[in-house]
């Protein structure tokens, strides 16, 4: 699709887009990075792959043989 426009039209669209992007609001990494870290820490307790699941509760545990007691 991009190949059907002239180089001038493509550049014009790129300039318009860049003008918009320059105006985006941004926050410092000390703040946003902390929020990313806080999220992961808060959710850590619910993350089965992170903390591991006991074999008997793991739906993908090894398929065992039947045992008759």
């Amino acid at each position, binding site marked *: *699709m*991009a190949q*059907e*426009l002239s*180089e*001038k*039209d493509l*550049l*014009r*669209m*790129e*300039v*318009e*887009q*860049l*003008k*918009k*992007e*320059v105006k*985006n609001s*941004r*926050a*410092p*990494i*000390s703040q*946003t*990075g*902390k*929020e*990313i*870290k806080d*999220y*992961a*820490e*808060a*959710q*850590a307790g*619910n*993350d*089965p*792959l*992170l903390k*591991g*699941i006991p074999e008997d509760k*793991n*739906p*993908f*545990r*090894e398929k065992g043989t039947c045992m008759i007691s």
Partner: protein
Amino acid sequence: MCDQTFLVNVFGSCDKCFKQRALRPVFKKSQQLSYCSTCAEIMATDGLHENETLASLKSEAESLKGKLEEERAKLHDVELHQVAERVEALGQFVMKTRRTLKGHGNKVLCMDWCKDKRRIVSSSQDGKVIVWDSFTTNKEHAVTMPCTWVMACAYAPSGCAIACGGLDNKCSVYPLTFDKNENMAAKKKSVAMHTNYLSACSFTNSDMQILTASGDGTCALWDVESGQLLQSFHGHGADVLCLDLAPSETGNTFVSGGCDKKAMVWDMRSGQCVQAFETHESDINSVRYYPSGDAFASGSDDATCRLYDLRADREVAIYSKESIIFGASSVDFSLSGRLLFAGYNDYTINVWDVLKGSRVSILFGHENRVSTLRVSPDGTAFCSGSWDHTLRVWA
């Protein structure tokens, strides 16, 4: 329940370029014409910039890019791993293959989990799309597509249908039926039509809309029932290879990655690109949102995975090692976002500590490239698909 209304576009021949596109009304000297979105945008900027030359536009673009980098650099006051310095380091991980799904006759190209956390749909170069029960490894459905290289497949949120496509340039939806007398292929519905291969597809939060990415350089949003194009997304300079929808709580955006090395974040309603990132050195094969929606990860042929922070508007981490020289084909986060699983063309899966930037584990097992990887909806396992014709479920 569909809580969004979209302007239903008239589809037809554009009055300026005569191509078959979704059209909108424009007024030129009080006469109403129908232009496609591209011609409409050009017309909007036409009258304002008559004295521009190619050279002046190029230099304006360069200076704007410089300004953008400057603004982004101002927020780069600290690195992510420094913010995470006091976070407890992760211990040893023991993850192994719990199930191997065998049945495809050729390379597995894509897979997706059902919301029931046990069913999986996978698609292959052999033209087959299979639905598996990952607990039992039984195949529940299989359909043969009219094309080879089915590069994309997705499960509908209801679990009642799947979508797939590839070299046929389309995305088709198949309702899943358990009636043994019904032929799945008979109920096939063609939804999306691109002018090049379909590389990725995803249902939105309902069975009624599908988002697609294509080798034609665009992404598009479609109404499943009518096949109508609801919105198209132009901006990538080359094939789009991947997309991911933002977690539903964070609003109507999605991210796409392409062969132009760019990752772009889009507003689904307006069709506008909101933010773009160009730090990878090669094709971006996979993009995935961080679970909170505030960031996304990417995997690329440049052998790195990266994390982009949407609110700082920049790349904040690179996951790489000198010993990793093959491209990363697919990435996904664990439930909390602490772990990033990445499948590579060197047949391995690397597990990264997202916050600290270090690798915590390397998983061997596949006998050819890992082409696709997704964590299950409840985070208890992840599934990888490979060019070795198999899928593996790891936990």
